[in-house]
């Protein structure tokens, strides 16, 4: 059967704009994941700073280490305060022909990938997200920049649902 292509005139008024979309928030548990990840990163830096104590020839090593640990601790506390705000902004929205992911705190960004351009979809977990039963969806396209968009903090059911939806949409777009 011949496939009929529609070619209606488009005006900006009859498009559901990305700025008006209702974004689905990530799972609440993902905020805990963010806390754990941030804590681990800062702890790693704090441990690294301790290596300065091995430098016997450096006279101010104790003072410097205390200073560095103090700065890192303050940065960690500030980061912890900012995390809920960053988490609240993260979200995704699916339209008829594309998927949009919103993230960022100081440089908020909105990325949209048309389904017809998606090459690969995968669902993954790492050690921390496994502890909280969360999944990340990786959406790969053929772009030179922004080739991989990841939507983290999804429950297993939701992740699989989105994956199936994207794959179905890719098939439908390809018809």
């Amino acid at each position, binding site marked *: 059967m011949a496939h009929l292509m529609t070619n209606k005139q488009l005006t*900006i008024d009859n498009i559901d704009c990305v700025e008006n979309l209702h974004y689905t928030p990530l799972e609440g548990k993902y905020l805990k994941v963010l806390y754990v990840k941030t804590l681990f990163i800062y702890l790693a830096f704090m441990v690294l700073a301790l290596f300065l104590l091995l430098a016997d020839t450096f006279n101010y090593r104790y003072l410097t280490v205390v200073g560095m640990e103090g700065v890192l601790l303050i940065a960690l506390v500030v980061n912890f305060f900012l995390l809920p705000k960053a988490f609240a902004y993260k979200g995704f929205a699916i339209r008829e022909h594309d998927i949009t992911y919103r993230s960022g705190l100081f*440089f908020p960004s909105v990325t949209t990938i048309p*389904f017809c351009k998606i090459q690969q979809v995968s669902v993954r977990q790492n050690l921390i997200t496994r502890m909280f039963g969360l999944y990340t969806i990786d959406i790969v396209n053929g*772009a030179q*920049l922004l080739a991989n968009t990841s939507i983290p903090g999804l429950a297993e059911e939701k992740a699989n649902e989105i994956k199936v939806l994207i794959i179905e949409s890719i098939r439908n777009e390809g018809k």
Partner: protein
Amino acid sequence: MRANDFSAPQRMSFSAFVIFFLKYLRSYTGFLFVLVLMKIFNPDNEYTFGEIIGIILSFLGGVLALATISAFLNYYFKKYYVEGGNLVFIHGVLQKEKTSIPLCKIQSLRMKRGFMYRLLDMRGVSFDTLASNTAEIELILDDKDWNMLFNQVEMQENGLEEGLEIGQDETVNNRNRRLDVRNVNLIKGAFCQNHLKGMVILAGLFVTLWNQLMSVNDKAAVYVIDYASAHIDFSSFPLIVLVSVAFILYIVMLVLWIGKVFFQYFNMDIQMDEKQLFFESGLVSRNSIRFSYDKICTVYVKRNLIERWLNCCTIMLKQALNATDEKRGADVKIYGSNEAGNFLDWWLGKNYASSNLVASASSGYGLLGYVIRYDFLLSLLATVVLCYYGLYTWIIVPVVYLLVSLAKGLSAVRQSRITLKEDYLEVSNGKFAEVKNYFKYANVEVVRIVATPFTPHFHRVNLVVSTNGTSFVMRSLKEQEAREIYEWLLCRTSRLSS
């Protein structure tokens, strides 16, 4: 007689063996040279002239044998054929490997004709797909096999399975249009491009000399300057000589750069038909590339000040990149011609210039801040250092540097613009040079809009448009215009696919 319909596995022709042999011989020669030197100049042994000749001959024999064996293994255990629309390539001695490339997935055919290839009338053909982590496969073919294979690839692309009977010449030679890019244009284009490079090299040379001078002794430079001051009255060493030497060095650099371009792009042959483009160039080694009309993702047109003055431009046809392309660069560059209109006619359609305007947005002064950010910091730092040492007169240097940077930034702001036409997009993003990138909606892969901490105050955002071969970041666009363009891009891209 060798079957050349590629239905059964076959080896490359014997000339390929000769080329393999010469390649291996060349790669082993350096090793041979080192071995001979180590043997002859070994202080424990003293050799007569006859013995030295004997050693050289024996090593030479060994290398010849090694090259022959390597070439034979490479030649004998490599077979290729076409099966079910795939180019199948069998290779490996101990571990046999079978690689299949769907002919319709071949993005471009890159052809190399080095000096030896030309002597033996052979071509090294590489097949590129869009796979990002697959090594390319090179076949060394004679004209007949090349044309047959080329024909098969074309027919797969066109979906003309029954066309296998069509003669090779009909396909290969059926090119509608040949662009005339003269070698004079090439020199003109290279001259326009390489002025800056020549200056950078010259500056690099001076810096190296200065470092060498300073490495001799911390006060070496002072001694040289004192010596010159002491003798300048006697020798009347004129400043003009220094300027002349610098000028000659600069010209030498320029000529070397132009020579490089000349070697690479000599006798450029560009042939276009409705569906594909064929490009061949090179003085000693002729390199060619052929790709389909729809595999070009961006046409880049640049005009710097000299190019505008000489009424020419640089054109680059950019393809979707894969891992191999990143290493070798598969973009076609055409220097010094004024053929941008012809390429755009071919790629975007005859009436591209009259395509209706859909939307457009220009960058604001946020782009100026972005362009000069590092120059500003550098100038500030230099000024602080100069003030610290009391060298107030020298502050003119960072001031001039910052002024040039400001001019560059203002020029970038003036030019930076994204324009959506009915049939294509145009992104202008040059600084001093006028740069225009043309691409189609079908090539847009992903779009992103990024706000900055200044967005709530100035309502300007950045728009990122990424295609399968290029990506563009349009900075400091009006928020509303950027959002409209964002939606249009997504609509067009999705609509084209449905």
